[in-house]
C-alpha cells in the first residue's frame, strides 16, 4: 500500500508540470493581450487613448519580458503561493478569487446534494423497473434537464421568479446584504436566491447521475448473490439497499476527482447569467479580457484540484478494493 502511494504521488509532479505548461499556452495563445482588449474597450466608449499610458502599462505589467521568463516567474511564484496579479482588478489573484470561494462552495455543495436527492430514488426505481413506463417517464424528466441549455433556462426562471415572487434579479442575496456580516436575515435572503441556481445547475447533472446509477444497479442486479439473497427471502428493499446499492455507488467515489474542480468553478455559464458572486464569472471574464494571470492561476488551481481529487479517489478505491491495491495502479 505504501509503495503504491509513493508511486502514485510521484506521478503527480510531472502531471502538474505538464498542466502548468498547457495552462500557460492557453493564456498565451489567443492573439493580442490584455492591453489590446483594454484599448478597444476604451475606444468603444469614446475615450481617447494616450499611447504613452499604454506603453507605461505594458512595462508595468511586464509584457515587455520574454515569454519564457514570464512562465518561469509565474510557475515559481505559484510554488511559494504567489498566484500573480490581476490586471483588471489591479489586485493579487488570491484576493480576487479568495473572496468568492465561500459562496461558490456553498452553491456547489447544495447543488450536489440536490442532485443526489433527486437522482438516487429515480435511479433505483428505474433500475428495478427496467422498461416500465415509470422508467421511461422518470428518465425522460431527467434527460429534459440535460437537454435544455442551462443559460436559457436560468434566464427564464430568473424572469418569472421576479415577476411572480418578486425575487431580486441575479446575485445570491438582496444587494443590501452584500459586504454585511452574516445574520439571520442575510441567510434567509441567500436561501431565497439560492434555489434558482441550484435547480438550474442541478437539473443538468441529474440525468447523468440517474443514468450511471441505473446502469451500475442493473449490472449488480444480475449477479448471483442477488438471486441467492432473494431466494433466501430477504425483504426486497432491504436486500436492494444492503448489497447491490453499496456496490453500485463505488462510482461516486471515483467521481470525487471530477467533483472537486466543479465545486470550485461552479457552473460558469449559469453563474454568468445569474450574476452569481462565485468564481465562474470571474474566470470567464478573465479569459475574455485576457487577464492572463488571473485566468491562468485559476485554471491551474482547478486542474491541480482534479489531480489531487483523482489521487484521493484512487487511494480511497485502493483502500476499499484489494484487487487494485495489489495489481498496483490500474485504477478507475
Amino acid at each position, binding site marked *: 500500500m505504501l509503495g503504491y502511494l509513493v508511486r502514485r504521488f510521484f506521478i503527480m509532479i510531472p502531471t502538474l508540470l505538464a498542466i502548468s505548461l498547457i495552462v500557460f499556452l492557453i493564456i498565451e495563445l*489567443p*492573439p*493580442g*493581450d490584455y492591453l*489590446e*482588449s483594454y*484599448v*478597444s*474597450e476604451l*475606444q*468603444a*466608449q*469614446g*475615450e*481617447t*487613448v*494616450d*499611447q*504613452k*499610458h499604454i*506603453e*507605461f502599462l505594458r*512595462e*508595468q505589467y*511586464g509584457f515587455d519580458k520574454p515569454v519564457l521568463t514570464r512562465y518561469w516567474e509565474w510557475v515559481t511564484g505559484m510554488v511559494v503561493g*504567489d498566484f*500573480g*496579479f490581476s490586471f*483588471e*482588478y*489591479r*489586485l*493579487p489573484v488570491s*484576493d*480576487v478569487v479568495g*473572496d468568492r470561494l465561500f459562496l461558490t462552495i456553498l452553491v456547489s455543495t447544495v447543488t450536489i446534494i440536490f442532485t443526489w436527492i433527486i437522482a438516487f430514488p429515480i435511479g433505483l426505481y428505474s433500475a428495478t423497473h427496467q422498461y416500465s413506463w415509470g422508467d421511461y417517464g422518470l428518465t425522460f424528466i431527467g434527460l429534459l434537464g440535460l437537454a435544455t441549455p442551462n443559460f436559457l433556462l436560468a*434566464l427564464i426562471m*430568473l*424572469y418569472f421568479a*421576479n415577476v411572480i415572487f418578486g425575487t*431580486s*434579479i*441575479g*446575485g445570491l442575496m438582496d*444587494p443590501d446584504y*452584500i*459586504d454585511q456580516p452574516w445574520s439571520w436575515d442575510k441567510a434567509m435572503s441567500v436561501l431565497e436566491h439560492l434555489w434558482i441556481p441550484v435547480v438550474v445547475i442541478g437539473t443538468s447533472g441529474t440525468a447523468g447521475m440517474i443514468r450511471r446509477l441505473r446502469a451500475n444497479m442493473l449490472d449488480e442486479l444480475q449477479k448471483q448473490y442477488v438471486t441467492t439473497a432473494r431466494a433466501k427471502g430477504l425483504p426486497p428493499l432491504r436486500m436492494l439497499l444492503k448489497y447491490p446499492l453499496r456496490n453500485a455507488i463505488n462510482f461516486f467515489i471515483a467521481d470525487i476527482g471530477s467533483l472537486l474542480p466543479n465545486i470550485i468553478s461552479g457552473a460558469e455559464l449559469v453563474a*454568468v*447569467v*445569474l*450574476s452569481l*458572486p462565485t468564481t465562474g*464569472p470571474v474566470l470567464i*471574464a478573465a479569459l475574455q479580457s*485576457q487577464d492572463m494571470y488571473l485566468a491562468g492561476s485559476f485554471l491551474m488551481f482547478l486542474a491541480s484540484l482534479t489531480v489531487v481529487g483523482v489521487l484521493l479517489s484512487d487511494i480511497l478505491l485502493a483502500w476499499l478494493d484489494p484487487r487494485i491495491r495489489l495489481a498496483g495502479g490500474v485504477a478507475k
Partner: protein
Amino acid sequence: MRRSALFLAAALAGTAAFPAGGQPVLVETPLLEAAVKAGTLPPVAARVPAQANIAVLEKHGKSLGRHGGKLNLLMGKQKDTKIMMVYGYARLISYDENLNFVSDLLADFDVQDQRIFTFRLRKGHKWSDGHPFTTEDFRYYWEDIATNTDISSKGLPQALLVQGKGPTFEVLDETTVRYTWSAPNPNFVPWIARPRPLLLYRPAHYLKQFHAKYGDEAKLNAAARKENKRNWANLHADRDRWYRMDNPARPTLQPWHNSTKPPSERFIFKRNPFYHRVDKNGRQLPYIDNVVLNHGATNMVPARTGSGEADLQARYLRFDHFTFLKESEKRYDFSVRLWKKARGSQIALFPNLNARDEVWRDLFQDVRFRRALSIAIHRAEINQVIYYGLAQESQDTVLRKSPLYKDAYRTAWTAFDLSQANKLLDEVGLTERDEDGLRLLPDGRPAVITVETAGESTEQTDVLELVRDGWRQVGIKLLSKPSQREVFRQRIYSGDTIMSIWSGVSNGIPTALMSPSEFSPSNRLQLQWPRWGHYVQSGGKSGEMPELKPAKRLIRLNEEWTNATSASEKSKIWHEVLQIHADNVFVIGLVNGTMQPVVISNKLRNIPAEGVYNWHPGAYFGIYKPATFWLTEEKGGRS
C-alpha cells in the same frame, strides 16, 4: 466674518451670479450632524471653501432640494467604479449645459493668447479628508509625477505637448499657478474638462508616503514587491488610482468618495463632506448622501433595471431594451426616457484607405467609388427597421445640436440612388461583370468587400444585412466577418482589413472651440486611414505620409485651427473641414441622432427629462451635475 468673505469672493469671482440681498446661511447636513457634534468633523462653515461655488439652480430650471437618500446604479466590471469620476464631474474647469467653459473647482481662470493659462484656486478648499487643497498639489503633480522619470518614464502626456514641447510651470502663490507654452495650446482647457480629464493636481499629502523622493526607496520597493508590483513607482500609481476611484484611502475633490475596499460586488460612495458647492439655501452639495454601485453581469443590467433595482441607469441599456423597460414602468416607480446620443454616426462603414491590397486601396482612394457605395445604401430602411424611424439618415458629421451644423453636410451623398451609383461605378471603370452580375475588379477578381466587425454587437451585423441588399444591386457583394476585438485594430492598421464597421466620430456636437482633429488624420486608431493618422501622430516618424490631396488639406486645416486665435476664424476652418468630409465621404455614415434609453426613478429631481447622453462633451450625466440631483420623499410625482 467668514460668511461675508464668502459672499465677497463669490461675487468677485463672478463664476455664479449671486442673488442680491440673499446671503446663504450655511445649513448642516443632517447625515453629518452627529459627526460634527462629536467633534470628528468640523462644522459646515469650516468645510466649505471661503469662496464656495454657489449653484444657481433656477437658471437651469432646477429646484432647491433636500439632503439625504441613496442612489442605486447598476454596473458591470470592477473598473466601472470610474463612472463616479465621470458622473461626479468636478473639474478645474468644466462644460456647462450649453458647452461653455466655466470654472468649477477653480475660483477663476485666465487665458492669454491661448498660451498662458493662469488658474486661481478657492481659498479654504479642502480634499475629502479635510486637508487643504493648494498649489502644492499642482506642484506635486508637475514635479514629482509628470516630470519624474521613474513614474512617467514615457514623458509628458500627449495633452501637455505642443509641437512636442511641454509648458513652463510656475507656482505664483498658494492659490495661483500658471502654465505657459511657446505656441498656442487650444486643447488644454478642453482636456481639463473631459470626462477622463487631464488631472493637473494630486493629493500630495497622501501620496508623498509612497514616493521615493519623500521616503525610503528600498523600503517602498520592498512594500511594492510584497504586493506583486515591480517597484515603488508602481505602488505609487496603484495608490493614486484617481480615475477608477476605488482606493478608499485616497482623498478626492469629487462630490462622492468611495468607502468600499475592492474587490466587491457593491461599492458605496459616500458624500464628500468638503465638497466645494452650496445651494442658495446654504445647503452643501451633493444633496444625495450615498451612491451605491451594484456590480453584476452586464447582460443582466436591463433585466435588473426593469425590476426596479436602479434609480438612474443608462449604462448597459440599449435602444432595443426600451420596449421592455417601458412595460416594467407600470410595475415600478420609474420612468424611461429617450435621450439623444451625440455620435457623428451611430454606425459607419470605414473603407481602409491604407489597405494593403493595391486594387482595393486605389478604389477606396477614388472618391467616386466611395460615393457610389454611400448612395447604394438604403438608409431610410435601416432607420425604419432598426431604429423605428427615430434616427436621422446622415453622413458621419456633426449633429443638428452643434452650432456648426448644416443640412448639406448631413445629406451629402446619402440619398438612395441605385442608377447614379451604377453610373459612378461604371465611370470608375468597373464595367465588366461575371455571370452572377458581380462587377469585376481591374485584376479580374469579383468585387467582394469583406467588412470586419469587432464581433460584439448584433446591431452591426443586422445593419450589414441591410446594406448587403443595396450593394448587391449595384454589383458588389458584401460579406461580413466577425473579428475579435484584440485583433480588429491590428488588422486594420496592417491593412489586412479592407473595410470595417464601427461608430462614427465620438463628438458629434462640437463647437468651433473644440478640436476638429477627429475629422483629419491624427491618430493611428482611426479606422479609415490608420497609417496616415499614425504619421501625423508620431510627427512623421512612423506610418505613411498621406498622398491624397483632401487628406493633406485636412491635416493642414487642423494645424491652422490650432494656431487660429479668434472664434470666427476657427469656425471658418471647421466649416471647410466639414465640407471636405461631406464631399469626400471618407467614412460612410449611416444614421445618427439615435436614442439612449435612460431609466430615472420618479423620486429623482433636477435631472432633465430630455438630455444628451454623450461621453465627450457631456460626461454622460456629469454635465447635468448629479451633485444637484435630489430625491423627494413624496411618492411618484413625475409623469
